[in-house]
Structure formats: C-alpha cells, structure tokens
C-alpha cells in the first residue's frame, strides 16, 4: 500500500484548508441570490474555473475511466463530442443566453414565465427526480475510487461515502453558491496539478506498444473504431451529441454558471472557455482506464470500475498519491456541493414554493433549501449502497439526465425560439421525453424477460436517443393541435430592458 503518513497529512491539510475557506465565505451570503447564483457576480476567470470544476468530479473521472477500460481508444470519441457541443452552445448562446437575459435563477422558472406555474412544478419535479437519481451513484463511484486508490480495496467504500457526504453537506448548507465558487477555485487548482502528475506517472508504468497490444487483445477493432464498437456505434454517438447538447444548455449545475455570470456575454464566454477543456477532461481519465486495462485485463462489473483507481494506487509514489486523493476529494466536494445546491434549489423554489399558496420569505426558502440539501444527502448514502446500475456508469449518468433534458430541451428551446409553443406542448414534451429513459431504468433489470417487440427499451443507446425525438414530437404536436384552446404566451415583457 502506497498511502503513507505523508499522504494523510497532505489530504487532511487540504481538507482543513478548503472547509475553512468555504465557511469563511459564508459571511458573504446575505440573500437568496447570493446563495443560489452568487449574486450574479461571476467573471470569466472564476466562472470558467467553477464551471470546469463542477463538471469534473471524481464521478466524472470514474465513469470516463470505466469507459476507457471497457472500450479502449474508441471511448475518446465522447471527449471530442462533448468539447464540440459545449463550444457550439457557448458560441451560439443557444438557450443559455435567453435564460440569462430573463434573469431566472433555475431552469424551471422559465416554464412559469413562458407557460404556467403548473408547468414549472411538473418540470421542476421531473428535473429533481432525474437529477437526484443521476447523482445517486456519485457517492458509490467516489467511494470506490478513493478506497482503491488508497489501497483499501472494497473494505473502506462505505465509510468513505459517509465521511465525504458529511463534509460536503456541511459546507454546502452553510455557505451556498458563494462558498462553492470560492472553494471551486482552490479545488480546480489542486485538481489540475494532481491530474497532470498522475498522467505522467501512469504513462511511465507501461509502454505505448503494451497499451496498443492490450487494447487489441482484449477488445479487437472495437477498441480503436467507435463507429463499429458493439457498445457504442452510431446510435450511441448521436445520443451523446443530443445529450451533451441538452445538458450543456439545461443541466442546472452547469447552466447555473451562465445564470450566475455578470452579463449574458460573460455567460457565453464562460461556456466557450470551459468547453475547450472538456475533451481533455474526458480523455485523461479514459487513458488512465486504458492503462488499467493494460495492467489488469479481463475484469467485469464493479471490478472493471475499480481497475483505474487500483492502477493509480499501484503506480503513484508516496506523496503524489496524497496530492491525487486531495485533488479528487476536491473534485468531489465541488461537484457535490454544486449538485446538492442545484437540486435542493429546484425542489424548494420550483416545486414547494410554486405549490405554496402563501408567499414564502427569502429566509424560509433558504432554510427549506438547506434542509433539502441534508435530505438528498441521506438519500445518496442509501441509494449508493443498495442500487445496482443496469449498464455502464457513463450510460446510467446520461440516461438519468435524459429523463429531464430530453423533454426540457424541447419545451425550453421551442419556448424561446418558436412563437407557437404553448402549455400543452410543454406538458407533452416533458412527459414524453421522460418515458423512454424511465422505462429503460425499470425494464433493463428484466431484460431477459422482455418480449422482442419492446426489447429496444433495455438498450440505453436507443432509449436515450429516441427520448429526444419523443420530446420534440410531444411539443410540436401538442402545440399545433391546441393553438386556439391554449394561445401561446409572449415572452417579450420579461426580457431585461434592451436585451430582446
């Protein structure tokens, strides 16, 4: 085991520092917008740091690493797609620009402006369920990473899960977005350094010839060609294009960076700068996964997931592993705090507050948001311990995200850019978009018992891909068929003066 007293010292020293910074930043939170969107103060540098840090948690490293282990070099296509799509969303300002101009704090607030309060409640509820399910495996994957990289094997996974969550919930509850932003910056710094150092040592452990042979021996041509790879293929690639496009524009933890920007123009720039790192963000852990395949071939299930951290634990020297673990903990804390805050804000503002007949004070909303951070935290522990993913971690993460994004991209995209979009179209888009991913999550566990006619539902690639078509169809058909009964609302009065 490489993890020595020096490594423990590095990890605890860093944790002490980052929690102190988070709690110190708490005194700068005076109102709700300070808690949720950092009082819309983010400039391009810190905005980019916080967005990259949010999108780069240990969970990202884990599912990308697993993808590299299972699919070899073909996995790298995901990084190229992500970079391209996020850059295009930033460049065009598609959806994010409109939302920032409307000064909404959460994505479902748009539903109320454009459609109705009940649409906001339904949209918020689906977003909350999809988001929390999506986050449900974070703790487990992070626990596996830390436990294996530190050399404890499977023994310490549960205790690491509990400890991590405790720390993150604490400073998210007390600090909010200002804390998250400030600590994100420090976390991003240590994370970048640790990734660079870990990549250097991982590459020293094997030769390029060994990597090439391992990929070919274990995966054949599937390991080199994503278009013919049996796990990936064209359906997967189109699904990733659509999913990343929708997530870039509408996934609350990331989108909140655009909504927190000091201006719509800065919001776009933050996306463009961050997007350029997204290929590397995916490919670096994927390469670690491929190196793990070279060292530990033939693993399946949770062992395949654990192969990459196991490899890092074996090749990194004392001290370096401490920096890596501190970096990964940093990554997790940043991701968790942003996600917890995002989903707690959505359930509080878009469901509870929207359902409430009396108006709630800012203080009450803030208290309810903090309570939900704790509730989601407890859920994550139990879900992480007992739930078994029906497919690879990457596909699980994307398909749970699709529960919301597939319908939302139609209801918000059409809502911003198509005058005929109406309330019925929005309801139908949200519901039809969620059907295929939800069916997959339930039916994939009974794949062998399904009749051939609906067996496609148990294929994550196809279910995910088709959910976007269903969402768009729901919006267009619902709106066109009910134009007279439910005339569309005009958004013009809600835009910031001079922005439209």
């Amino acid at each position, binding site marked *: 085991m490489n993890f020595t007293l020096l490594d423990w010292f590095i990890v605890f020293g860093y944790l002490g520092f980052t929690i102190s910074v988070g709690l110190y*930043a708490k005194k*700068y939170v*005076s109102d709700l917008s300070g808690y949720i969107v*950092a*009082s819309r*103060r*983010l*400039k*391009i*540098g*810190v*905005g*980019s*740091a916080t967005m*990259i840090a949010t999108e780069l948690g240990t969970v990202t490293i884990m599912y990308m690493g697993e993808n590299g282990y299972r699919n070899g*070099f073909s996995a*790298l296509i995901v*990084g*190229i797609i992500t*970079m391209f799509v996020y850059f295009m969303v930033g460049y065009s300002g598609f959806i994010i620009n409109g939302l920032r101009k409307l000064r909404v704090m959460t994505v479902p607030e748009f539903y109320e402006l454009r459609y109705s309060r009940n649409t906001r409640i339904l949209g918020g509820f689906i977003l909350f369920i999809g988001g929390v399910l999506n986050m449900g495996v974070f703790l487990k994957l992070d626990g596996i990473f830390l436990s294996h990289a530190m050399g404890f094997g499977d023994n310490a996974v549960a205790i690491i899960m509990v400890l991590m969550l405790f720390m993150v919930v604490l400073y998210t509850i007390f600090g909010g977005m*200002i804390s998250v*932003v*400030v600590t994100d*910056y420090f976390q*991003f*710094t240590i994370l*970048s350094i640790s990734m*660079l150092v870990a*990549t250097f040592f991982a590459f020293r452990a094997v030769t*390029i*010839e060994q*990597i*090439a*042979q391992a*990929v*070919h021996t274990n995966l*054949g*041509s599937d390991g*080199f*060609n994503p278009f013919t790879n049996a796990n990936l293929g064209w359906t997967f690639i189109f699904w990733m294009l659509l999913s990343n496009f929708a997530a870039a524009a509408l996934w609350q933890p990331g989108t909140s960076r655009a909504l927190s920007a000091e201006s719509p123009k800065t919001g776009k720039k933050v996306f463009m*700068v961050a997007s*350029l*790192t997204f*290929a*590397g*963000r995916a*490919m*670096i852990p994927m*390469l670690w996964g491929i190196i793990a395949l070279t060292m530990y071939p033939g693993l399946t299930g949770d062992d395949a997931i654990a192969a990459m951290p196991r490899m890092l634990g074996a090749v990194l020297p004392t001290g370096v592993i401490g920096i890596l673990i501190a970096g990964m903990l940093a990554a997790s804390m940043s991701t968790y705090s942003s996600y917890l805050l995002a989903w707690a804000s959505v359930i509080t503002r878009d469901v509870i507050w929207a359902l409430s007949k009396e108006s709630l004070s800012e203080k009450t909303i803030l208290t309810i948001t903090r309570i939900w951070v704790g509730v989601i935290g407890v859920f994550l522990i139990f879900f992480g311990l007992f739930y078994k993913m029906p497919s690879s971690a990457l596909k699980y993460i994307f398909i749970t995200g699709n529960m919301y994004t597939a319908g939302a991209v139609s209801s918000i995209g059409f809502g911003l850019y198509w005058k005929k979009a109406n309330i019925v179209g929005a309801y139908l888009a949200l519901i039809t978009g969620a059907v295929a991913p939800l069916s997959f999550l339930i039916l994939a566990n009974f794949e062998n018992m399904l009749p051939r006619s609906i067996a496609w539902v148990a294929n994550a690639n196809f279910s995910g891909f088709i959910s976007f078509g269903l969402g768009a169809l729901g919006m267009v058909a619902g709106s066109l068929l009910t134009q007279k009964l439910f005339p569309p609302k005009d958004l013009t009065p809600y835009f910031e003066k001079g922005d439209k």
Partner: protein
Amino acid sequence: MTQTDIMVSTYIWLGIFFFSGVVFFSIALWVIFRGGKDVMEILTEIKDKQ
C-alpha cells in the same frame, strides 16, 4: 487488424489525447491565474457593499 494498423491507430488516438491534454492544462493554467484575480475582486466588492 495488422500490427501496423494497430500501431497507427494507437498513435493517432494518442495524438488526439496529447493535443486535448495540452489544451486542458493550458486553459487550466490561464484559469488559475485569471480566476484568482476574479475571486479577490468578488470578495472585495461584496465586503465594500456590506
């Protein structure tokens, strides 16, 4: 796949990886310097306001 195909494919993918890695770490470095300045400005602004 022949041995040459395997090695050529490996080098192409590694080339893409190294390019993406260099972009990632270059931007990371820029963001670290620029972001540090922004964090200080945000905290000073809020402090002055309070």
